């Protein structure tokens, strides 16, 4: 950065440097011309002086012996030098002794001029003494024509032109550079502004996201509170009635009691469905995916669908041939299809037709690329279509949102499609809605193809026979009420029950009672041991110990990538007396059910 800063400084100083360089160039040019002129004169003086000295040394004898002819021949010999226009030899009295003139109009000074060089216009003359030993005999005068000032200046003008051009180029460079520097600064400024705008936009977007999140959370919590309050109203109200009846002194109206209790139970079951859907939407429900033949599953739902949809809705199933298997939680898939069926029914208040179609499908990369949140691959497609009212694009966009409903208050929870969406996504598939107002709706579920075909389980058989046992069961549950309920139920079923509130207590009980056959533990336990850790430790000590987990919501301990760990037996809260009895028996007998 320091290098860049100093470069920037240099960049900004460049026009100044260019200007200074141009001025320096001009000064240098002037100096070069000046020194060229000076050295030209100096050289000329030396040249003419040399000529004069040579002449002076050759005319000694001629002067000595007064031989004017010889002197004239000597001085006339200067004619070979075109630069010399006149010369003269003067005798001891300073009078001309011999004269050379290139043209008759020229003259030489008389008497002899002062010794040394002298300038006049474009003429340079040198006067030197003629000596014989120490004795001066006379003088020699030589005058040369300098190169005309004009032609000299023309020569300098070439240099000057070059210098001026160089200076001009430098100046132009400087100006260009200055302009560049300016636009660079402008660019920098624009860049900074852009960055600031981006940061501002990011802030706004973040705020928007936060607001949307808060809105979604508000909608979710509002919806949950609304539905739960209704449920609790029913539960509390009916249980209150029952309590008052009992306080009034016995069973005055056994019918009223039973109605109250059943209403409370129904309400609680609705609450259980609600929480199950919430978990499904949040993709946090523990799935137990197994190879599923979708055609067979739909075939098995036939009765249920007819019952649910009523008489005014015709059901048609078009099941694709040689349908691939998929890997999914069969119970959840049933729930999803049932939810879709219920929605379809509600969209056809005056009757219609529901079509369930299955097919194999291959989504290529190009298709996956244009669809949001889709990946390419082979899928089993289940399309559920109705001939109902259809949805507007806006409704389609929000249809999968939790608690979004177009139904009247009390008619729907708004969690049906959320469950479908959450489950499909958790299973590695896609869900897509095709609908237009008045044209009905098709919802397609894409379930990933199972490439290694496995044995398809039979649909779970509902065990009607309620069987208990006499084995010893250790119940570990930190919630005292839940623990009390479980203990009561198990005792009612005939089991011997030992209870513990946390992991360490459970372990010491296990140590003390080697005859415990089954560990029934909550996954979420307080303290250092959670249910999984407790079970692992117990299994290490007692490899033959059977284990059944329960949980309201298990995130990490026994569920990974949305699936129950292999070999893990789990009963989800809330569970009923019947369900608990069946699972306990199954685990004890080693015949676990899905």
């Amino acid at each position, binding site marked *: 950065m320091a290098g860049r800063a100093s470069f920037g400084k240099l960049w900004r100083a460049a026009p100044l440097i260019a200007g200074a360089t141009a001025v320096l160039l001009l000064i240098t040019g002037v100096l070069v011309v000046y020194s060229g002129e000076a050295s030209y004169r100096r050289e000329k003086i030396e040249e003419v002086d040399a000529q004069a000295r040579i002449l002076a040394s050759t005319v000694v004898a001629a002067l000595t012996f007064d031989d004017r002819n*010889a002197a004239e021949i000597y001085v006339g010999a200067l004619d070979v030098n075109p630069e010399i226009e006149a010369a003269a030899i003067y005798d001891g009295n300073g009078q001309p002794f011999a004269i050379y003139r290139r043209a008759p109009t020229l003259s030489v000074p008389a008497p002899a001029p002062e010794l040394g060089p002298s300038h006049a216009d474009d003429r340079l003359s040198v006067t030197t003494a003629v000596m014989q030993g120490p004795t001066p005999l006379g003088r020699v005068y030589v005058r040369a024509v300098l190169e005309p000032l004009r032609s000299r200046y023309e020569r300098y003008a070439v240099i000057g032109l070059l210098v001026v051009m160089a200076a001009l180029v430098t100046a132009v460079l400087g100006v260009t550079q200055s302009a560049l520097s300016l636009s660079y600064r402008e660019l920098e400024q624009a860049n900074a502004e852009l960055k600031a705008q981006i940061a501002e936009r990011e802030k706004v977007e973040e705020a928007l996201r936060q607001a949307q999140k808060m809105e979604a959370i508000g909608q979710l919590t509002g919806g949950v509170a609304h539905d739960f309050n209704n449920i609790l109203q029913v539960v509390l109200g009916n249980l209150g009635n029952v309590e008052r009846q009992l306080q009034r002194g016995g069973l005055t109206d056994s019918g009223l009691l039973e109605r109250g209790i059943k209403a409370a139970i129904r309400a609680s079951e609705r609450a259980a469905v609600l929480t199950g859907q919430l978990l499904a939407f949040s993709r946090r429900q523990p799935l137990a995916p197994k190879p599923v033949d979708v055609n067979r599953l739909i075939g098995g739902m036939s009765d249920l669908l007819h019952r649910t949809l009523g008489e005014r809705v015709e059901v048609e199933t078009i099941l694709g041939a040689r349908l691939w298997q998929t890997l999914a939680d069969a119970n959840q898939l049933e729930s999803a299809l049932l939810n879709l069926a219920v929605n379809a029914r509600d969209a056809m208040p005056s009757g219609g037709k529901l079509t369930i179609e299955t097919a194999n499908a291959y989504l290529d990369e190009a298709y996956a690329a244009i669809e949001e949140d889709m990946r390419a691959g082979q899928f089993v497609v289940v399309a559920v279509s109705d001939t109902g009212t259809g949805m507007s694009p806006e409704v389609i966009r929000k249809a999968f949102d939790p608690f979004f409903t177009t139904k009247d208050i009390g008619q729907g929870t708004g969690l049906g499609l959320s469950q479908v969406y959450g489950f499909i996504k958790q299973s590695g598939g896609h869900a897509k809605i095709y609908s237009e107002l008045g044209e009905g709706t098709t919802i397609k579920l894409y379930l990933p193809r199972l490439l290694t075909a496995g044995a398809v389980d039979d649909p779970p058989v509902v065990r009607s026979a309620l069987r208990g046992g006499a084995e010893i069961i250790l119940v570990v549950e930190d919630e005292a009420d839940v623990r009390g309920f479980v203990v009561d139920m198990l005792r009612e079923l005939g089991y011997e029950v030992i209870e513990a509130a946390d992991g360490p207590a459970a372990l010491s009980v296990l140590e003390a009672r080697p005859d415990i056959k089954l560990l029934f533990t909550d996954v979420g336990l307080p303290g250092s041991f959670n249910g999984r850790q407790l079970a692992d430790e117990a299994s290490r000590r007692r490899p033959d110990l059977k284990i059944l987990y329960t949980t309201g919501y298990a995130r990490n301990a026994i569920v990974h990538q949305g699936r129950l760990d292999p070999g893990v037996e789990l009963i989800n809260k809330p569970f009923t007396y019947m369900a608990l009895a069946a699972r306990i028996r199954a685990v004890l007998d080693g015949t676990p059910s899905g």
Partner: protein
Amino acid sequence: MRFGRSGTIRRGRLAPAAGVALLSYCLLTMTAWGQEGQLELAVKATYLVKFAAFVEWPASAFESASGPLNLCIVGAPLAGVADQVAAGQTVGQHPLAVRHIAAATHGLGCHIIFTAGAPQQSVEAAIDAVRGEPVLTVTDLPQTAPRRGIINFVLQSNHVRFDIDDREATRDGLRISSQLLALAVNVSPR
């Protein structure tokens, strides 16, 4: 810038004036003699003195590095003019001395001998007397004379000029300046 030997140089213009020293001296002497012939003598005497500066003698010709340069005049043809011209003159390190002798003889120590013929010795005899010695013999004989000195005065266009026998000079061990040779009317080349 060289000139050919002066035999080829064309001469003939009259000199309107002479060198300053010479002129002033000539004016003095003219008052003394008052005749044209005497002016010519004076010029010759002056030349005689000045020749020394343009001639190089072998070092052995002098007694020492600053030994005198002897100008010997056989008889008295220049009537003492040479003495006045030479007074106080030096040639290089050598003071110029004028000696009047009756006859030139071998080993006399003369560097320049001027002879115009004397009662005791003819010009030819004088020349012969110093033959082979580094002596500049100067004569004033007609150009037709068979035996002349190394330098022989001639009168050309009313000017005193001279011939130079450079061959004889070289034979006697003298070196005559090219400038002087250039002024000679005739030169016998080496």
